[in-house]
């Protein structure tokens, strides 16, 4: 039995998918609470767009370097802010999610639980974890990190820069840096020209503009004389206490380049931490070296088999990149489609586009994806790292230690975590779980079930004890307040420790 709901729907994440779903629901009269980790709406793709527009003309150079794809998010953000019925809670992390629609939140030193009959998980993507020797050195960063520093920090890289990996983002970032007058020493790509020819077979007509845009970036980088190498492998970062050089194999020979900043990128994968913590079913994609949640087209998630923490039907839908990597436009289309499915369930669907139509928008927006996946296959994560490479960044567990334990016959993620502490550090396995799963799959490709991420229990993000002690929204049936009156036998005269 559920407590009185706090809203008709709770949305986790205020990126394109979350904003789009919130607008759709609220404009049909639903009360929506949107929780987001960042201080302003937009997600990572439109990160700090509001602030950067307001700070003009100081930010003119930055906005022009980030290009029209970034500024395109402005109308969506404006509508999100202006739509009545949306209670937007920025700078709020979610540390618990349950299939019955209960959400644990934290904002500064305040925490609590909220409940709604519908929850939309729109928590976006993360970069595919790519362990290689030296990836923990100061000076090694992801392409997403550098983009965040550009958008939210108004910072550009300086010094000797190498970009390594694959995916449209690395080429986009290089072109943005070029516009800011930053010239990388090398763009080292794991993908090859033959990947592009193979990929052309999967090119959907709607993908042609994106393809032309990508070719434009490449042409401008060539014109600017930025050195580019394709088909690289064996990436290593070197230095004592900080990055000083990178090494890789290119065209059959080893090259070494002095460098201050190595920017790596190997594509993005759905962020599944909350879905997994809620007990939702994930599927392992071998070729993509990642998990994604099992959902219907309208985003409805299903419970993983086995015992669950909550009873009753699953009230969670997953949308945007957290469901399928598709980028901002696909996220907006899917957020709308998922919200439409909820409105139909609530009987609010009158005057709304039919589910068939919004579903077609989703399919169309995702149609370019097979081409991109084939043109930029995982590269840095194509092979498992050598024994000396750290896999678990937090606890500094090497590939060699994991291999040794697996060769001894261990095939269970949680047993390896409990024994070696891989995945037991501050990030709670976000950076190493997928790599460990790849080791297990390599050791036994015929195992009956692909591995699941490490078992997750709330809080899945840090929760200060003070916030825990003063939590609001607790279910009185589950939370019992203990006082000294409950334990009269503990009160002994003059005993200050009672």
């Amino acid at each position, binding site marked *: 039995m559920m407590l009185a709901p706090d809203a008709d729907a709770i949305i986790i994440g205020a990126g394109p998918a979350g904003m789009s779903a919130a607008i759709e629901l609220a404009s049909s009269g639903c009360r929506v609470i949107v929780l987001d*980790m960042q201080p302003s709406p937009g997600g*990572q793709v439109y990160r700090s767009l509001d602030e950067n527009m307001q700070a003009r003309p100081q930010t003119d150079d*930055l906005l022009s370097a980030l290009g029209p794809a970034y500024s395109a998010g402005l109308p969506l953000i404006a509508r999100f802010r202006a739509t009545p019925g949306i209670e937007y809670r920025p700078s709020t992390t979610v540390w618990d999610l349950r299939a019955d629609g209960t959400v644990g939140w934290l904002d500064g030193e305040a925490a609590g639980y909220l409940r709604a009959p519908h929850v939309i998980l729109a928590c976006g993507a993360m970069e595919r974890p790519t362990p290689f020797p030296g990836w923990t050195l100061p*000076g090694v960063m992801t392409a*997403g990190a550098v983009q965040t520093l550009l958008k939210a*920090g108004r*910072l550009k890289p*300086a010094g000797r820069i190498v970009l390594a990996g694959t995916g449209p983002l690395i080429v986009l970032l290089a072109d943005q840096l070029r516009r800011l007058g930053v010239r990388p020493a090398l763009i080292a790509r794991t993908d090859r020209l033959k990947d592009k020819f193979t990929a052309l077979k999967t090119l959907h007509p709607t993908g042609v503009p994106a393809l032309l845009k990508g070719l434009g970036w490449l042409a401008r980088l060539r014109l600017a004389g930025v050195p580019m190498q394709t088909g690289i492998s064996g990436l290593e970062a070197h230095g004592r206490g900080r990055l000083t050089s990178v090494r890789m194999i290119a065209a059959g020979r080893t090259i070494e380049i002095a460098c201050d*900043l190595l920017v790596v990128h190997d594509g993005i994968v759905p962020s599944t931490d909350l879905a997994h913590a809620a007990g939702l079913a994930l599927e392992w994609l071998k070729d993509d070296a990642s998990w994604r949640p099992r959902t219907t087209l309208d985003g409805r998630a299903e419970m993983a088999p086995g015992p669950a923490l909550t009873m009753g039907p699953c009230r969670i839908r997953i949308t945007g990149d957290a469901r399928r990597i598709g980028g901002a436009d696909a996220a907006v289309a899917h957020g709308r489609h998922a919200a439409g499915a909820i409105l139909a369930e609530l009987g609010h669907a009158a005057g709304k586009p039919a589910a068939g139509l919004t579903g077609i928008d989703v399919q169309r927006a995702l149609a370019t994806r097979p081409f991109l996946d084939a043109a930029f296959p995982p590269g840095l994560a194509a092979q498992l790292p050598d024994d000396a490479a750290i896999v678990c960044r937090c606890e500094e567990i090497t590939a060699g230690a994991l291999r040794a334990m697996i060769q001894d016959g261990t095939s269970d993620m949680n047993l390896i975590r409990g024994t070696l502490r891989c995945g037991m550090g*501050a990030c709670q396995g976000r950076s190493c779980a997928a790599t460990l799963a790849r080791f297990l799959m390599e050791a036994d490709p015929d195992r009956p079930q692909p591995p699941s991420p490490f078992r997750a229990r709330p809080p899945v993000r840090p929760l200060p004890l003070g916030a825990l002690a003063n939590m609001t929204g607790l279910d009185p049936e589950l939370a019992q307040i203990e006082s000294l009156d409950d334990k009269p036998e503990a009160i002994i005269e003059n005993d200050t420790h009672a």
Partner: protein
Amino acid sequence: MFKPVGSAEATMTIYLDGRAIPARAGETIAACLLRAGVTHFRTTPVSGAKRLPYCMIGHCFDCLIEIDGIGSRQACLNAVEIGMRLRTQDGPASIPGLDV
């Protein structure tokens, strides 16, 4: 490693290990310290290796730092505040007065 696009627009001061660092309202601690050229935010509890932010979006927890006396907080998710006192974190977080 990083420099501002345009002017830094610093309007406030924060402190890292007692050293004054100019900061811009609204930026994250991580961005502010990277602009200032800080070489590491923490050392790891296991080997003592130096770390800087890696993902900048709250996933990797490599940007942990002590903020106003509380250790192991994510510099990429917390905004600068006037007079904020940061400390480079050596190894695990410590709690004042407690030997843990």
